[in-house]
């Protein structure tokens, strides 16, 4: 087993790519996979950036081109955004944002998921694409263990509030460090009803969109996500209270959490300190 760790500056941030390869896999065989993943990230940025005035997305927003004149992935992404809007009960709505349609809340996760798919290879046992905290992964770090990720405590951003083992994707949205950047599609005004919302599921694009939706919708959003097959959600209120759907893949939460009142039907708290953890 060896690890190829790559950092790529793209989409206004740095994306981390970690590839866990078989020991026998030569690095020269892994590098092209990483290059391909990076290429996909840059292509997505070039097409969808709303910061680049000449990107097809920017031109579309200004009405200079039609969707049919844009690269085909624009129509693909907007269609997926429409699906996400419907699945989110309208709480995620790129068409309700000031300044015209803006799929940014979906594209980062979508692009990271596409980049991850480029890393699939018989030589690879696991890989992660971490786009500024929105994470897509497959496989694991070695053996049969899944990847584990920490979620930041929004009420104390230096601390982790829990650790999860998502099936494939983990996205978190909130306002605690970006100010009120989330827009309530029902009012067109900035709004967030929880400090942060995390969503896990089989696809990072939709997880990203649903996390945005839950951050705006608040507690009601948990039920919305639960109704979406394969997706689970967790919210942290402004007072630090946590709520999550029964299937949320919680691996551990803070040791100061009370021991009563939160037992889930799936025993999701059994990995707490002092308790025998599940054999995962």
């Amino acid at each position, binding site marked *: 087993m060896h690890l190829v760790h790559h950092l790529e500056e793209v989409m206004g941030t740095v994306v981390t790519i970690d590839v866990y390869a078989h020991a026998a896999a030569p690095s020269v065989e892994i590098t092209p996979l990483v290059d391909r993943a990076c290429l996909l990230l840059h292509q997505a940025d070039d097409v969808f950036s709303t910061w680049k005035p000449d990107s097809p997305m920017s031109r579309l927003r200004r009405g200079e081109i039609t969707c049919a004149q844009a690269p085909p992935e624009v129509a693909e992404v907007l269609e997926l955004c429409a699906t996400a809007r419907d699945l989110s009960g309208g709480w995620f709505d790129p068409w309700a944002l000031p300044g015209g349609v803006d799929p940014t809340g979906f594209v980062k996760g979508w692009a990271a998921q596409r980049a991850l798919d480029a890393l699939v290879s018989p030589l690879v046992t696991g890989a992660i694409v971490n786009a500024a905290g929105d994470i897509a992964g497959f496989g694991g770090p070695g053996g049969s263990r899944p990847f584990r990720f*920490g979620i930041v405590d929004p009420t104390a951003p230096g*601390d982790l509030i829990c650790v999860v083992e998502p099936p494939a994707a983990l996205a978190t949205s909130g306002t605690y460090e970006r100010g009120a950047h989330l827009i309530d599609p029902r009012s067109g005004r900035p709004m967030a009803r929880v400090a942060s919302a995390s969503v896990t599921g089989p696809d990072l694009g939709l997880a990203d969109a649903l996390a945005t939706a839950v951050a705006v919708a608040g507690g009601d959003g948990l039920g919305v996500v639960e109704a979406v097959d394969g997706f689970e959600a967790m919210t942290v209120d402004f007072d630090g209270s946590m709520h999550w759907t029964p299937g949320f893949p919680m691996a551990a939460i803070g040791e100061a959490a009370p021991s009563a009142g939160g037992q889930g039907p799936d025993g999701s708290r059994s990995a707490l300190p002092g308790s025998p953890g599940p054999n995962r």
Partner: protein
Amino acid sequence: MRRAMIVMAATVAGLVGVLTFRTTPARLTLGALPGASVTRTAPPPTVAGAPPPPSSTTTTGAPPAPGPTTTTTPAPTTTAAPTTSRTATGASVNYNWGVMSVSATVTGTRITKVFIASLDDGGNSRSQSIDQQSIPILEQQALQAQSANIQGVSGASYTSAGFAQSLQSALGKLNVK
């Protein structure tokens, strides 16, 4: 809008109940997690399935310039880590309020210090209050994340993401995962 919210609430009211409880100070601390290392004075032990600590013999000089970097970590053969401290500064990362870079000091494979190397938020007063609130705690988080045997951190942020990414860049230069 109010009507819409009521409709929404009615829509979800019948859905499966959601787990609820308070975690007032819910803090993950060293040793709170399954598999977490509780040894702070030595290189972390190799936990089954954990990302392998890099061999000390593979340490090379830090790349001279920030930017995309790729490092390859060989198979885990935990040997005595060097006791000398090494420091590197990660790539400058754009975050919502400006540009920041993070430096990390490692002793062997253990992070011993993390600090903001540069922070330019353009004098934005809103940014400053956010930075002052979030950054000192983030430094603790970086240490915490390493202790928790996790492969990444998810958070709604630009600042913390920028911090984490620059830190990872610094650690990459030091051949520390």
